[in-house]
């Protein structure tokens, strides 16, 4: 593992035990994240992107879920580490922000108290006055106007965008190496989303941290990510750079996603290329490639054998598809140029 890798996930598999049977929410997911980089994870509901994220902080309940594989942060495997070690990693090494900033904050405490708490947990010897000073600094950094006054206000006194700034302040107060952002702008209006994405980019270069950005919005991915994982039915189906995903996508599901996106630029009212059917139930995934019932290019082998990830094309993409390379590249470029 090179020095620059701050997070390494290998063969992560998460199985939830439900009354209806076992659900494999994440299946053999591996990726590395380097310092200062942004990795985007895209997929639809049920694709396993959020469960992947919460596994990194070991947030899945061990009574109902079995997590295997390894998640290495600073030389420690989060999945097998002592609870105290995981508590140290949470916040100081890896921090997380969630989709809904209102439910991520405690309505009974002032925002200042909630930010300072995150600092005091990892700096037990700091005084309350120190914590307040650090909190004020952080509020300024995340762009809260008149922080001296607002530090003593409660979450309900802030707007949605401001609340997300508060949540970011809590996440970054211990200067983590990795920030996991699970749909951080989905609940926000588009002008506020732009503000938050800008803020995250600024803070990323200031703190030199890596970001795992989970989203269903390909526009957000195109604007922020360096590398992208496309997930479907709990598996990675394509791993590529953001340029490659949009110029030479290598998986039929990615082609479908690109075709289904409405864009501001299109003046013609051509039909969107919808993907037929709906995402599969994780309880009864189709045999072979989980995408095969919805795939227009499916071969006989697709319903028999799960395709392994392999390299294809010249841009370093990795895909899990049985189609021959030349067809993947031809169809992929066609999908990208639509």
């Amino acid at each position, binding site marked *: 593992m090179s020095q620059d890798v701050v997070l390494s996930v290998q063969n992560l598999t998460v199985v939830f035990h439900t009354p209806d049977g076992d659900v494999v929410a994440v299946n053999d997911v591996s990726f590395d994240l380097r310092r200062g980089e942004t990795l985007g994870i895209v997929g*639809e*509901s049920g694709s396993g992107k959020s469960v992947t994220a919460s596994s990194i902080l070991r947030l899945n309940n061990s009574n109902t879920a079995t997590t295997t594989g390894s998640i290495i942060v600073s030389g420690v495997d989060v999945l097998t580490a002592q609870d105290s070690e995981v508590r140290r990693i949470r916040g100081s090494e890896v921090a997380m922000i969630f989709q809904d900033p209102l439910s991520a904050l405690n309505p009974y405490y002032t925002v200042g108290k909630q930010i300072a708490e995150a600092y005091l947990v990892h700096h037990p010897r700091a005084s309350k006055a120190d914590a307040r000073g650090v909190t004020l600094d952080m509020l300024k950094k995340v762009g809260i106007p008149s922080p001296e006054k607002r530090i003593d206000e409660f979450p309900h006194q802030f*707007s*949605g*965008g*401001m609340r997300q700034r508060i949540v970011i302040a809590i996440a970054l107060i211990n200067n983590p190496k990795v920030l996991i952002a699970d749909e951080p702008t989905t609940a926000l*209006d*588009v*002008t*506020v*989303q*732009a*503000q938050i*994405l*800008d803020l995250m980019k600024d803070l990323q270069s200031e703190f030199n941290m890596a970001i795992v950005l989970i989203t*269903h*919005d*390909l*526009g*957000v*991915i*195109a*604007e922020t990510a360096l590398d992208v994982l496309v997930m479907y039915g709990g598996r990675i189906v394509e791993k590529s750079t*953001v*340029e490659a*995903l*949009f110029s030479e996508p290598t998986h039929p599901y990615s082609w*479908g*996603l*690109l*075709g*289904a*996106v*409405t*864009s*501001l*630029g*299109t*003046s013609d*009212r051509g*039909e*969107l*290329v*919808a*993907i*037929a059917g*709906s*995402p599969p139930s994780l309880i009864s995934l189709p045999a072979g490639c989980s995408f095969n019932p919805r795939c227009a290019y499916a071969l006989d082998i697709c319903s028999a054998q799960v395709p392994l990830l392999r390299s294809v094309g010249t841009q370093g993409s990795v895909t899990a598809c049985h189609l021959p390379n030349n067809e993947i590249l031809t169809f992929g470029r066609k999908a990208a140029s639509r």
Partner: protein
Amino acid sequence: MSSDIALQAIDLVKHFSTGSSGFLGRATNIVQAVDGVSFSLPVGKTLGIVGESGCGKSTLARLVTRLIDPSSGSVFLDGVDITTLSGKALREMRRKLQIIFQDPYSSLNPRHSIGQIIGDPMRIQGIVNKANEKAEVQELMQRVGLNPEHYNRYPHEFSGGQRQRIGIARALSLRPSVIVADEPVSALDVSIQAQILNLLENLQKDLGLSFVFIAHDLSVVRHIADQVAVMYLGKIVEVGDSATVYNSPAHPYTKALLSAVPVANPSLRNSAKRIRLVGDVPSAIDPPSGCRFRTRCWKATDLCEAVEPPLQADATGRVVACHFPEEVPVSVG
């Protein structure tokens, strides 16, 4: 009013009072949710209404379908002011004007089968009788892409996209001329979203429907709408042909809104000139004087604070409410 207008709203106002209703008429806060909105929807066309949360677009949807009564103003459907109707005439109007809701989970009764959800309105309005109800419902289910054999199933047995198809079938069941769709695809995954948008467009083509399409997603509205109205704090700030508004926005808010949309093309990442609005939308309880956008506008002057800009048409026929509209390039040809 010409006969090729399907639906027209004139100066619609809806104010809600908040807080305690007040003992002995004590003053309460008034939320100016919709404040003087007018538009007309041509037959067979789609009017898109965009805006951020709190701009009044959903209130507008409920006003034009008369799910709530306006504080003042009127809505004309086929030349009749529907805000004054009652009894039988109101019921007749509801047949012609249907709504599709955002949330396909809460808008379907979990205790009713699909057959009941789609069939009940048809029977109540006298479109079908007991004998042909099932056949008619199944034909509709087929039309919106549901399996007619699922007639006796319940909503929880369907996925989000399929439920939205049920909602669409229910709206179509009364053979309306106008459908108001309030964020019909925003709860759906992108691949499903495309299916529903295609379905709505095909239905419009086949049945000659007129749509009011409300959404916060500007690219979805770009795809489906012929005309687009941009709302800010209860007012329309710009209306025009979709192509005109999207290619050369005249109101600063429209321009900022469009530039904030992430573009699904990484090579354009740093090329587009971004306008970053600061702050949030002000409260509709106490909106700014003059132009409501002035507190976030980079062009605002004393004039904007003192005088509210009226909606005025420019050379291209687009209507905009701004004292200092963006320079619009004069199109050649």
